[in-house]
C-alpha cells in the first residue's frame, strides 16, 4: 500500500505540535509554581516525583476525573465549546512557528498573519464561555477581555507592521533568516532601521502580557475582584483546558517575540545556531513573564487603557513613521 509521505509528515507534525503545546502547558504550571515559590521563599511542589516533577501529571489526572458540572441555566453549547475555542487556535498557531531552519510544521508565507488571526479567536472563546455561563462576574470579565484586547492589539500590530516593513516578508522563517549571524543583527538592536527598536520590543512584550491576560494585566481573572473571571463556572477539565490554552498562548507570545526580535534560532555569537537557542530565548521570556506576575500588583482597567492609548500607541506610531522614513531615505 502506498501512503503519501506528505500525509505522514503532516500527522507527525500534528502529533508533535499537540504534544509540545500540552507538555508546555503542563510543565509551565510546574515552572510557575516553582518560580513563585522561589520568589516567595517557599519550596513549592516537591512531594510528587523528584522536585515535584510529576505534579502536572497528577494535577491533570485530578482535573480529568472531576465531574464536569454544567450549571443550570447556562447555554450548554457555548459553555462546552468555549474551552475548545481557546485551546485549538493556540495549538494551530504552533503549526507556523519555525523552531529552527528545518523544524517547522508548515512554512507559510503568511505565518505572522495566521498567528495573529488565531490569537484573536482566543478572545472569542473567552467571551463565549463567559456569556454562556451566565454569571455576572464572568460577563464583566468578558467585557474587560474584549476591550483589553482591542486596546492592545493596535500597538502590537503597529509594531509588527514595522517589523514586516523592515523584513519585507511575513514568512517567519525568512524573518529569522534576515537576523542571522550574531546578536548585533537581531531586530531588537537593528538601530539602523529605527533607533526605537529596543523600545518597540518593550512595547511588544507589554502587549503580549496584556494579550495573554498575564499579571499585571490579569484584569480578566482578577481573583480578588471577579472571583475567577471567565472561568468562574467551570470545573474539572473545562477549567483545565482554559488553563492549558492560556499557557499555550504564553508560549506562542514568547515564541513570536523571539522570532521577531531576538533572532529566533540564531546564536548570539554566530556559533552553532539551532533549536536549542530558540528554546533558550523563549523560555527566558516565559520566565520573565512569570517573574513579573509574582512581583507586581494588578493595574486597574482604566490604568491599562490609559497606558495603551496614551503611551504605547503613540510611541509605536512614531516608530512606524520613523522606520518608514529611514527605509525611504537610506
Amino acid at each position, binding site marked *: 500500500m502506498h501512503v503519501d509521505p506528505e500525509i505522514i509528515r503532516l500527522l507527525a507534525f500534528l502529533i508533535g505540535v499537540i504534544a509540545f503545546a500540552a507538555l508546555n502547558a503542563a510543565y509551565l504550571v510546574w515552572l510557575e509554581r516553582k518560580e513563585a515559590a522561589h520568589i516567595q*521563599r517557599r519550596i513549592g511542589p516537591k512531594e510528587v516525583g523528584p522536585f515535584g516533577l510529576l505534579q502536572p501529571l497528577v494535577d491533570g489526572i485530578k482535573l480529568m476525573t472531576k465531574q464536569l458540572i454544567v450549571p443550570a441555566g447556562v447555554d450548554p453549547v457555548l459553555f462546552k465549546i468555549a474551552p475548545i475555542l481557546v485551546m485549538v487556535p493556540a495549538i494551530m498557531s504552533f503549526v507556523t512557528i519555525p523552531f529552527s531552519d528545518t523544524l517547522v510544521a508548515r512554512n507559510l508565507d503568511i505565518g505572522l498573519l495566521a498567528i495573529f488571526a488565531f490569537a484573536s479567536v482566543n478572545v472569542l472563546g473567552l467571551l463565549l464561555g463567559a456569556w454562556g455561563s451566565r454569571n*455576572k462576574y464572568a460577563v464583566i470579565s468578558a*467585557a474587560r477581555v474584549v476591550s483589553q484586547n482591542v486596546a492592545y492589539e493596535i500597538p502590537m500590530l503597529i509594531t509588527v507592521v514595522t517589523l514586516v516593513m523592515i523584513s519585507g516578508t511575513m514568512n517567519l522563517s525568512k524573518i529569522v533568516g534576515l537576523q542571522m549571524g550574531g546578536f548585533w543583527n537581531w531586530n531588537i538592536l537593528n538601530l539602523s532601521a529605527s533607533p526605537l527598536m529596543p523600545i518597540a520590543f518593550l512595547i511588544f512584550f507589554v502587549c503580549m502580557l496584556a494579550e495573554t491576560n498575564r499579571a*499585571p494585566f490579569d484584569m480578566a481573572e*482578577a481573583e*480578588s475582584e471577579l472571583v475567577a473571571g471567565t472561568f468562574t463556572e467551570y470545573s474539572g477539565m473545562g477549567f483545565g483546558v482554559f488553563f492549558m490554552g492560556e499557557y499555550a498562548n504564553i508560549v506562542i507570545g514568547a515564541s513570536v517575540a523571539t522570532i521577531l526580535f531576538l533572532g529566533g534560532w540564531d546564536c548570539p555569537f554566530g556559533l552553532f545556531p539551532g533549536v536549542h537557542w530558540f528554546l533558550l530565548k523563549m523560555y527566558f521570556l516565559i520566565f520573565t513573564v512569570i517573574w513579573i506576575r509574582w512581583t*507586581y*500588583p494588578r493595574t*486597574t482597567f482604566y*490604568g491599562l487603557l490609559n497606558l495603551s492609548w496614551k503611551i504605547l500607541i503613540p510611541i509605536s506610531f512614531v516608530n512606524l513613521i520613523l522606520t518608514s522614513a529611514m527605509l525611504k531615505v537610506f
Partner: protein
Amino acid sequence: MSAFAESEAKETFVLNLGPQHPATHGVLRVKLTMDGEYIAEAEPVLGYIHRMHEKMGENRTWAQFLPNTGRMDYLHALAYNHGYVSVVERAAGIEVPERAEYLRVITAELNRVSSHLLWFGAFILDLGGFSPLLYAFDDREHILDLLESVTGSRLTYCYFRFGGVYNDIDDNFVPGTRAFIKRLRERMPMYHNLVTKNIILMKRLQEVGPISAEMCRKYGATGPVCRGSGINFDVRKHEPYSVYPEFDFDVPVYDQCDSMARYMVRMDEIEQSLRIIEQALDKLPEGPVMAEKVPKILKPAKGDYYHAVETARGSFGVRVVSDGTNTPYRLKLRSPTFSNLSLFGEASQGMLLPDALALMGSLDLVIPEIDR
C-alpha cells in the same frame, strides 16, 4: 475616570459580592447595584457569622465571658481581652500590678504588629500582588511564636485575667522580642522599597477611595481609617489607659484621605508599636503579675461602666451594666470595624469595582468582629 462618557439611560444590575468572595475576607455580603463596572449603590449585609456575643455575656459569669473576647477580632485578640478585663477591673475596683500592665502592653502591641502585618499582606493580595503576603507571614510567624510561649495560643488569645495576666514571661521572651524588633526594623525598608514605592500600587491607592473627615465623624470611624483622614485620634493617647502614658510614641496622621493614607498610617503604626515595645522592655519592672485577693466569684458593685481601648482597627469600647450579681446585667460591645464598614456605602458610590475593593481592603475588615 473622566475618559469614560456619561451614558444617559441607566441600566443597572445587582451584583452580590459575597458572602463567599475572595475580597471580603470572610462572610461579608455586599449587595452592589452596578451601572456597568461603576457602583451605583453598595449595601453591606451583615449577620452571616453572628454569634450573639453580647447575649452570651449576659448569660454567664464575668470570667466565663473572657474567652469570647478573643474570638471577635481574631487578629488583635489581646486588645479585646484588654478592653474587657479593664472594664471589669474598673467595675470591681481591682488594682493591677505594674508588671502585669507592662506585660499587657507588650503583648498587645506585638499582637497589633502581627495584625497590621497580616493586613498588609492581605491588602496587597486584594490589589493582585501575591508575594508580599508570604513575606509578611514570615515576620508574623515570629510574633506568633513569641506570643505562643507566653500565652499558650497562637491566634485566639485569652491571656489577661481580672487583676493581671495568668502567666509570667519566660527567660527567652525578652531577648526573643528584642531580636524580632531588630529583624522587623531591618525589613521595613524592604517592604517600602518593594511595595510602597511600586508605581502600580501608588497609582491604585493615591487619590482613590476618599473618606473625608466629616464622613468619619458621621459614621464614627476610628483607628487608622480616621487617622488617614487627618483626624488625630488614638485612644492610647487621648483617653490613656493602662501604662501607655509612660511611653513616648507618635500617632501617625495623614490628611490625604485616600487609600494610600490609610496604608501609610498602618505601616507607620508598626514602627510606633515597635518603639512602645522597646521602651516597655527597657522599663519592665519586677514583681507579681497577678493582683492578690481577686475574689473567685466576682460581684461588681451596681453601676454602669465603660472602657475603650485602641485596637488595630480602631476604638473598641465595652459597656457593662452591673446589678451586683455574678453575671452582667447588660453587656454592650462597640466594635470599630462595624462603624468603619458602615461608611463603605457612601464612600464607594460611583467608584469602579476594583477601586471600591481597594477601599474596602484599606478599611481592614474582620468580619467576626463586625457581626459579633
